[in-house]
């Protein structure tokens, strides 16, 4: 685990270095409209992307769930030599964790049997001597064949069993843990008895509960939270990314089951969602922009006019907006309609300080929140629009374009890819605004770095969106094949790839908690001796020393078998001797 984490971090650090060193190259590329650099880099970055996004979950349909459940039950039943019904009860008790069942069973079979209620032999001998035994529930006598019992041998009549089972099933999923009605007896009542004694409706309900239990009680599966979606997700616990993309096309976070919000963490998302829904912002607005009428206390917003305020009927109180005193005490002598001497004097004496300050603060914090919220919401709606544009594109326009430009459908894949990238980027960008809102004001370096990355990513995305939306239009409306369609292809594909890079940098930086700001600072301070950058970084990074030592920095070559590498003068990356340009920053050796 440890080493894996380190590897992951090391990757991040590497890619950030890549970003810094690549940034000048990128800037000049944009001016030229030349994406060669990106092409060089694309293989590598795609490798990394696919590595990171390696699927760590499986989407399960209802049939898949059934199959898995059956397999687990069969497995346990064969290994432990117990009936399938017993295996099912046992698995449910241990939340469908096969290895836990094994562990518990082989440590203390008797104990497990007792807690779960799987009896090996009846606790009471069914006394057949009276010809007509009495049911312990309704006290009627019945012939033996109309009586029934779980493994314990406590017999009750079939009608009472049916009632007992039905009550329990209609009470909810607790019926999966049904026990013998006798209070002193813990014998489990399994699906075999349910199927024998319950009505068809109840049997169906029971098996639904059993299926649901397999997903809901299992630690590594969850239902997709999208409304109406019937897929479940089996997640590899401990994976780096929580993002799950369900077959119903909904993307969500496995950890908190909110919509996917990478790179922002679940906690921030929860706070943000709460804040958006909370009435508190309304209150904040009222506080910042209104004053209560001194008489009836209704909030009043002053949007124009003089300081003489007349409250609306029925109150009709006339007062001064500044000092909130009755207007009858005002007039020429207090400064007229646009000023108030009383207020000025009182203010100088400090009477209003507290309320004014609060109002001012509320106003600032409200403005700040509004700033981030507006951008968050814009990207949200922009993403929704892009998604519908993408669907429209796939449904109608691609075919039209294929006809007009005489291009086979396979040659138009770059358009779909561009739109998919736009949709994903809008999602990421949206959440970076929630991130920005919670980034502490006093962390200037981090804020600057964050805003820089966000700005780069955003402008990249705007260019891509513009190109995919507007410029494509020209080719859609064209009468015949356009000569420059191939150029357009190169441009859009290039923009897609550039934007993807920008966003990957942004995502990685935010997931690091912008921890490389310090390193960045250290690097630029010691820019005259960049080779020491690694050492400086490790100092300021504190606990991250491990990572640094894993990387073959030139200053540490002594300890490493490193004769096959050369270190880049610009970014310190250790390249293979066979390479002539730096793998990271593309500067020549």
């Amino acid at each position, binding site marked *: 685990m440890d080493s894996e984490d380190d590897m992951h971090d090391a990757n991040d650090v590497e890619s950030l270095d890549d970003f810094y060193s690549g940034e000048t190259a990128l800037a000049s590329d944009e001016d030229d409209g030349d994406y060669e650099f990106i092409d060089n880099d694309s293989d590598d970055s795609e490798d990394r992307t696919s590595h990171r996004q390696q699927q760590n979950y499986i989407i399960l349909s209802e049939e898949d769930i059934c199959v898995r459940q059956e397999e687990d039950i069969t497995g346990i039943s064969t290994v432990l030599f117990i009936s399938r019904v017993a295996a099912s009860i046992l698995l449910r008790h241990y939340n469908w964790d096969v290895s836990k069942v094994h562990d518990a069973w082989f440590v203390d079979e008797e104990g497990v049997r007792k807690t779960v209620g799987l009896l090996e032999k009846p606790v009471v001998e069914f006394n057949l001597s009276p010809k007509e035994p009495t049911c312990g529930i309704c006290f009627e006598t019945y012939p033996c064949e109309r009586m029934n019992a779980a493994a314990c041998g406590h017999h009750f009549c079939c009608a009472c069993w049916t009632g007992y089972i039905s009550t329990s099933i209609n009470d909810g999923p*607790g019926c999966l843990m049904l026990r013998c009605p006798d209070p002193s007896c813990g014998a489990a009542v399994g699906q075999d008895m349910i199927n024998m004694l319950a009505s068809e409706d109840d049997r169906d309900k029971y098996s639904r509960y059993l299926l649901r239990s397999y997903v809901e009680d299992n630690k590594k599966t969850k239902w997709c939270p999208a409304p109406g979606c019937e897929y479940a997700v089996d997640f590899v616990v401990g994976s780096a990314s929580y993002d799950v993309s369900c077959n119903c096309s909904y993307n969500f976070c496995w950890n908190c089951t909110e919509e996917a919000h990478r790179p922002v963490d679940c906690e921030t998302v929860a706070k943000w969602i709460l804040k958006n829904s909370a009435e508190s912002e309304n209150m904040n607005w009222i506080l910042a922009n209104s004053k209560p009428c001194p008489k009836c206390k209704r909030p009043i917003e002053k949007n124009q006019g003089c300081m003489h305020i007349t409250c609306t009927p029925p109150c009709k109180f006339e007062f001064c907006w500044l000092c909130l005193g009755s207007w009858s005490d005002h007039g020429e002598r207090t400064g007229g309609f646009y000023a108030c001497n009383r207020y000025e004097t009182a203010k100088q004496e400090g009477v209003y300080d507290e309320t004014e300050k609060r109002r001012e603060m509320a106003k600032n914090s409200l403005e700040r929140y509004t700033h981030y919220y507006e951008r968050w919401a814009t990207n949200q709606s922009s993403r929704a629009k892009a998604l519908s544009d993408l669907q429209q594109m796939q449904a109608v326009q691609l075919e039209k374009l294929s006809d007009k430009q005489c291009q086979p459908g396979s040659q138009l894949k770059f358009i779909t890819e561009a739109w998919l990238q736009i949709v994903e980027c809008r999602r990421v960008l949206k959440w970076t605004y929630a991130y920005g809102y919670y980034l502490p004001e006093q962390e200037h370096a981090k804020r600057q770095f964050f805003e820089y990355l966000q700005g780069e990513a955003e402008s990249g995305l705007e260019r891509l969106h513009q190109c995919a939306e507007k410029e494509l239009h020209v080719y859609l409306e064209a009468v015949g094949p356009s000569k420059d369609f191939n150029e357009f292809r190169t441009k859009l594909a290039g923009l897609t790839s550039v934007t993807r890079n920008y966003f990957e940098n942004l995502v990685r930086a935010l997931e690091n908690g912008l921890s490389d700001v310090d390193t960045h600072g250290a690097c630029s301070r010691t820019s005259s001796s960049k080779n020491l950058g690694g050492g400086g970084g490790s100092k300021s990074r504190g606990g991250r020393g491990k990572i640094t030592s894993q990387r073959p920095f030139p200053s540490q070559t002594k300890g490493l078998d490193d004769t096959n590498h050369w270190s880049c003068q610009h970014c310190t990356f250790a390249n293979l001797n066979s390479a002539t340009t730096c793998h990271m920053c593309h500067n020549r050796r």
Partner: protein
Amino acid sequence: MELLKNPVDGFSAGLVDDDNIFEWNVTITGPPDTIYEGGCFNAIMSFPYNYPNSPPSVRFTSELWHPNVYPDGRVCISILHSPGDDPNGYELASERWSPVHTVETILLSIISMLSSPNDESPANIDAAKEWRDHRDEFKRKVSRIVRKSQEAL
């Protein structure tokens, strides 16, 4: 029926109204050697239509001061709760309602509740506090109630 043939010490039972077998009148006598000794407490047992699959409810009509009896007289004991009420009910299945329980077992449970209150999940918080912290005051109150119940006879 069964009860009439073999009367059990400590209580008697009968119908409130001869036409309605779902409402029973029961009288519980305070168990000997407890502070409730000598008291005669009336209660109404109401059976649901799907009895015995669901438990009946018991409500004292006589005044009663006890941690597990709500101020309005309703009795709160675990065997009168159906297992479905509590998601963890299966762990204590033996302490919850089961169709095997009868009027007799319920009333015996109530009598045992009178002799040993459970102050961990009280229905009457004031009574529970008093029972725990001011036992003397609690006893005084109970003996007043016992006297009252005798006068009502």
